[in-house]
């Protein structure tokens, strides 16, 4: 079933459906929809050259957060595309702003606390500088699947809750000029979000929160449909397969580095 759904989805070449095919489940559910990553972003059809199907975002199931590609499909980074409104930040966004310390009592391995953590993503941002909230009042998920930032994103504390909160909130990728090392490691180790680097210094100044963008990981390209500009991304490289697999443990088991857990 999954293969058929995937094949059908792959035929229509729009980025969002291609993304859906990439996240087909293996073994956990026969149907594509139950394993789709959580996304509830707005579709703005006005200036976009692409046709966006009206997807109703399915209920997100945290248990199946990381769905490895099914064995019958050859999935690689070239299919990983993300599309939707972007949230734009400047330089040196530290992890206290991403998730303040008072929320660190939430344990991400508990599904309801994972969701709650996501609902607090970026709550530490000063409202004077960031008037559009990352998560709308009353909502628990973000409307912004893509984050665009300046240099040294994720600096400060080593809290793994930072990339986890962003992933739990529904973001798929950060496109930043550069990253602090612990945040980068944590993003890869947890597989929660793609930490993509952009070659263009000052990219964030050319984008505005709400611009519709597409991230094409395989093509190493960011397209801002609202401004019409394109940017070159640095290849995600070795980090890609680890994040695709769902983090270092999933990757390590998949590649035979460590045995599956005995229980």
């Amino acid at each position, binding site marked *: 079933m999954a293969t058929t759904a995937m094949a059908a989805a792959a035929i229509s070449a729009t980025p969002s459906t291609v993304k859906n095919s990439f996240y087909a489940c293996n073994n956990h559910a026969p149907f594509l929809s139950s394993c789709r990553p959580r996304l509830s972003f707005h579709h703005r059809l006005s200036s976009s050259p692409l046709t966006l199907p009206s997807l109703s975002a399915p209920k997100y199931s945290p248990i199946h957060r990381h769905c490895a590609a099914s064995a019958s499909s050859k999935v690689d980074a070239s299919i990983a595309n993300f599309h939707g409104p972007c949230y734009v930040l400047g330089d*040196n966004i*530290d992890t*206290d*702003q991403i998730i*303040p*310390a*008072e929320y*660190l*009592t939430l*344990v*991400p*391995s508990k599904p309801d606390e994972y969701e709650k953590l996501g609902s607090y993503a970026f709550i*530490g*941002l*000063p*409202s004077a500088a960031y008037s559009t909230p990352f998560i709308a009042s009353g909502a628990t998920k973000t409307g912004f699947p893509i984050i665009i930032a300046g*240099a*040294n994103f994720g*600096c*400060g*504390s*080593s*809290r*793994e809750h930072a990339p986890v909160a962003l992933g739990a909130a529904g973001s798929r990728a950060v496109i930043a000029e*550069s990253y*602090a*090392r*612990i945040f*980068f*490691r*944590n993003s*890869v*180790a*947890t597989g929660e979000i793609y930490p993509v*680097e952009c070659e263009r210094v000052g990219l964030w100044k050319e984008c505005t929160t709400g611009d519709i963008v597409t991230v094409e990981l395989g093509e190493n390209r960011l397209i801002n449909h609202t401004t019409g500009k394109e940017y070159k991304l*640095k290849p995600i*490289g*070795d*980090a890609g*397969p*680890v994040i695709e697999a769902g*983090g*270092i*443990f999933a*990757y*390590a088991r998949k*590649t*035979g*580095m*460590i*045995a599956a*857990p*005995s*229980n």
Partner: protein
Amino acid sequence: MASLLNASSSAIFGAKKELCVAPCSSMAHRSRRHASNKVLAVMAPAQSPRTPSASGSVKHAMTMTEKILARASEKSHLEPGENVWVNVDVLMTHDVCGPGTIGIFKKEFGQNAQANPDYKGVCHIALAQEGHCRPGEVLLGTDSHTCNAGAFGQFATGIGNTDAGFVMGTGKLLLKVPPTLRFVLDGEMPNYLLAKDLILQIIGEITVAGATYKSMEFVGSTIQGLNMEERMTLCNMVVEAGGKNGVVPADEVTFKYLEDKTSKNFEPVYSDDNARFIQEYRIDVSKLEPLVAKPHSPDNRALARECKDVKIDRVYIGSCTGGKTEDFLAAAKVFLASGKRVKVPTFLVPATQKVWMDIYSLPVPGSGGKTCSQIFEEAGCDTPASPSCGACLGGPRDTYARMNDPQVCVSTTNRNFPGRMGHKEGQIYLASPYTAAASALSGYVTDPRDFLM
């Protein structure tokens, strides 16, 4: 002055990303492959004792950090930019990340994890005081200020819960070897300066990303004259410059400190004379002045005396960075010299139980036998609190000394990004314990020379 790299090492500048687990792929610019069979060794039984890194067998000159990682990865030589599997000597976690880390460990390895909590206080200072920091070793911790332990001449850096769970189960982690920035500090340390001023000087110089993915090595006559707690303060804040780790070569000061704390054998390593550093900075400490980092960034450096018109609402003396015994002795020195009372609420949060006891028992030089606690009381400070990280990172609303209003605070802590100590509009000036105490006495950001000279 700056040591230049030869052509084969120029590849490091392209390798900005942190390592990833990738048994079968190689970095595009390196021809050497990391054999996948090496990776399978992750679950191998305990390793045989490591061979000592006799300098005679070192083929190429290496920095301290490179040597430590070489030994820990059982390689005779490695270069910056390489991803290597490293045997970890010590893994630290704390009450915030411990549950998450142990949860991951149990989930992934299914073992019976055991923890024996015996509350000591702030992890980094407890590690040092309990003898877990030793020269030449690899220490990882689920906290960004794990780099604090580099003061002992070891490789110490922060990691996340998932990486830590991995280390718990395998004893190893894949790390990328960082190139080293060398800071040579010479000159006699003026009596109004502390290590905090030195590191604020450096961070202000290279910015909050100046040492990203790099090691920071501190050498020179000034460094040799610092005690262990001061060296810790220095290494503690390398992460604020983006640094991966900081190191101070181990010497008699280190060995003396460790004498009564650990009986384990250790083997210090030292950078070779012709080791390659990507940059070398020379600082004449005698020319420096007391500094602050103004809101809202640790690299927003300014002279304390140039901020004397900044009215403040409170002072916080605490954290791994500025809440050790030496830090409180320093603050007490300023209060003693003044003899007056503080003009603003002054919060004192010792880092560990040991520090707390020292505050109540150690005599302050020149005070006629008074303890820090007595001097603090006479100066009108708040009673020293129970040891903890306290309000350094804000925390839950009811955390002692948390900033719940948009106030101005001079703090001996390590970060001042928006909301760090609680309120998003709070203004935090990072400073040394001397500067913090001086500011408490005047009610404004104050250069401690006003009281010490």
